């Protein structure tokens, strides 16, 4: 009886450690026709393991290859795996994509269509019963960013502050990263942070799938529209696999099984769009660079 709680806690803490301490990528022996690696980041809510099992099976049957979803805590880790060739595809944020390094090694496969367009926003959220009505009122508070390489979770709010002539370090008392849009919502709901910046798609997804959590937060700021986090491929992926993956994703909205999966993702479908939709993000980096300079 006495050891029970501590044992449970020990396990819980172990799990917590594994979740936050970026474990190194598993060394996987390369072989011909190895399974396709598909990296996932915080742009989607990754907690629904069963959904990703179904999507994996769907994609495998469409591309005719084994496929594995690979999760890492931060965008940066996923980017590194793409660079080293350990990942073939990834669903990443537009910000790492527009960064020079991303442009060189990545190729746009498809852009999700959310609420009719391949676009999304950044939401500034506060706790539901918080008195704050705008980002400016969060001065001196605690603010949660999602990821240093996130557009909606970091770049956009920083740019907002920069336009106000502020930077996060001075404007807020404390800031921290949750490395997960959904957890940013949790941090704000639990009042660990006074405010946070999240992907509008993730917040809307949570509002639909987990209203108990999203309902405890309130959107007080909406940014302009930016290119939706795209699915990219490393340039060295063969043309056959590239085409197969793009075809599979684009075809999802046309067959019933794919439609069910898209419905679970709260997306309209995947489309091929001009990379110019991400120019807005690149402009933001310019704004920040000017603010710093």
């Amino acid at each position: 009886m006495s050891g029970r709680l501590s044992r449970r806690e020990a396990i819980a803490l172990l799990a917590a450690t594994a979740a936050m301490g970026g474990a190194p990528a598993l060394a996987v022996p390369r072989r011909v026709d190895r399974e396709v690696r598909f990296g996932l980041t915080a742009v989607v809510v990754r907690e629904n393991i069963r959904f990703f099992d179904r999507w994996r099976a769907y994609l495998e049957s469409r591309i005719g290859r084994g496929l594995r979803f690979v999760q890492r805590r931060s965008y940066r880790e996923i980017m590194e795996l793409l660079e080293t060739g350990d990942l073939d595809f990834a669903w990443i944020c537009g910000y790492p994509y527009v960064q020079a390094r991303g442009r060189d090694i990545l190729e746009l496969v498809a852009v999700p269509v959310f609420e009719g367009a391949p676009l999304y926003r950044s939401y500034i959220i506060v706790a539901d019963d918080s008195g704050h009505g705008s980002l400016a009122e969060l001065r001196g508070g605690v603010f949660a960013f999602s990821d240093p390489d996130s557009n909606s979770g970091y770049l956009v709010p920083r740019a907002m502050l920069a336009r106000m002539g502020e930077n996060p370090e001075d404007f807020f008392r404390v800031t921290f990263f949750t490395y997960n849009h959904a957890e940013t919502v949790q941090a704000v709901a639990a009042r660990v942070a006074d405010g946070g910046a999240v992907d509008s798609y993730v917040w809307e997804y949570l509002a639909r799938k987990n209203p108990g959590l999203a309902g405890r937060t309130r959107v007080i700021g909406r940014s302009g529209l930016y290119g939706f986090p795209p699915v990219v491929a490393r340039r060295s992926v063969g043309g056959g696999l590239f085409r197969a993956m793009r075809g599979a994703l684009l075809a999802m909205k046309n067959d019933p099984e794919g439609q069910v999966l898209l419905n679970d993702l709260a997306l309209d479908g995947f489309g091929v769009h001009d990379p110019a939709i991400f120019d807005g993000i690149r402009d933001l980096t310019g704004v920040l660079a000017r603010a710093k300079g």
Partner: protein
Amino acid sequence: MRPPRALSLSVKLPLTLTAVVAGVAFAIGLAVVVQERERIRHDLQDRALLVAKSIAANVSESILRNDYWSAYKALALVAERDPGAERTRVVTGAVLDPQGRVLAHLDPGENPLGQALATEGPFERRRVGELLARPQASVFWDEAAADAYVEGAVPVRSADSVIGYVLLRLSTEEIAARTRAAAMTVLGIALVLGVVGSALGAWISRRMVQPLRALAGGMESVGRGEFSRLPSATARDRDEIGVLVDSFNRMAAELAEKRVLEQELRTNERLAALGRVAAGVAHEVNNPLAGLLASLDNMRRQPDDPAVQARYLPVLERGLNRIRAVVQALLAELGADAPALSDSGCLNDLRELMIAEIGDRPIDLLWDVKLADVGTCAICRRVQHAVLNLLRNAVQAIPEAGTVRFRAAHEDGRLVFEIEDDGVGIAEPDLERLFDPFYTTRPAGTGLGLWITYRVVVGMKGEIEVKSEPGRGSRFSIRLPMAAPVAGPLMGAAE
């Protein structure tokens, strides 16, 4: 003086045993509960420290990286409770930086990041101050607080420097709950022991008290002088009670034997007295016999001498008169003098005698003789005497008016006489000594009549039986074998 309490041993013994068993169980139980409570407290305290330490190990990296969200998650995981499964509740928990500012807190709304702990009072502020001044693992109890807790405080170290503190407060509410559970268990055991103890006590006391009660009953019988119906106490064990029971049984047997010996002795004394009477009678009769025989001898030798005749006849007459006087005196003494029965001894003579004896008193004499032709007159004189004695007693037992029944018959090859009256009856103590010689309840009685009757019947190998109820009358029954009435000399004076 206090009146003696009347509780039976069979109640007192099990009660005492139950009380002792319950008392011991309760005392031990109390000690166990107290010890268990101490153990639970230690257990909880150890847990608070252990959990705080494991959180400290986990948040060290988060603190270095300013990853407050991870630190919060580490705390929240610990505080998370499976609904209903855990009794240990985390009251609150916090991660502080070396200056005491909040890095993570389970109540983030009240304790914002980067600010000093929102403590409730000066006492807690001092506690935090002491902790910051002396960074080492410590435990702190506050059971006076509304939400009583035990706090484990552990510094978070990186390399050699303290980079923060973890405070974890566990609710002490489970101490009471677990102590209560332990107390219930102990109480249950005490109850079971009490029940077993009283059952055992009841069993033991029954084993002990049963022979004691038998002994007490036996003692009472001895006190009343009854030896014949002594309850035989049996001892189960060779213990003190067993020895006592054995001793009592031996004593009772010896008492009974002594009484038999006394009765025999009394009988012998009576026989000796009778012997003396007989010896006296013989002596009185014998004295004149020598002179009479000598006179007779002289008269035979000189049958024709008138002088001899004249001289000895008066001597003879005097001697015989003397003997007659002695016998008559004895008969008068024995009360058997009156009737002169014919040699044939007819039963009807007895009837005539009785009618004469009753005279004009209002007593009915019912005569029922069914002896057929064996001859109502064929009864020997000794039996007639015995029956006559009983008939006379019957008449005498009737105070004024009444009925005397006589019945004579053959039954099952035996001669049966029944003499029944509705007179005063015979009292219980008199019944026992009814046939003793010289025992009488009548002032004028010799005490020899029934004794003679008894001797006659016994001498003929017959039986005599008495049934009597004081105030309602008596019935005497004599049963004689058919061959008997003519046989056997009678030792006694009635013939």
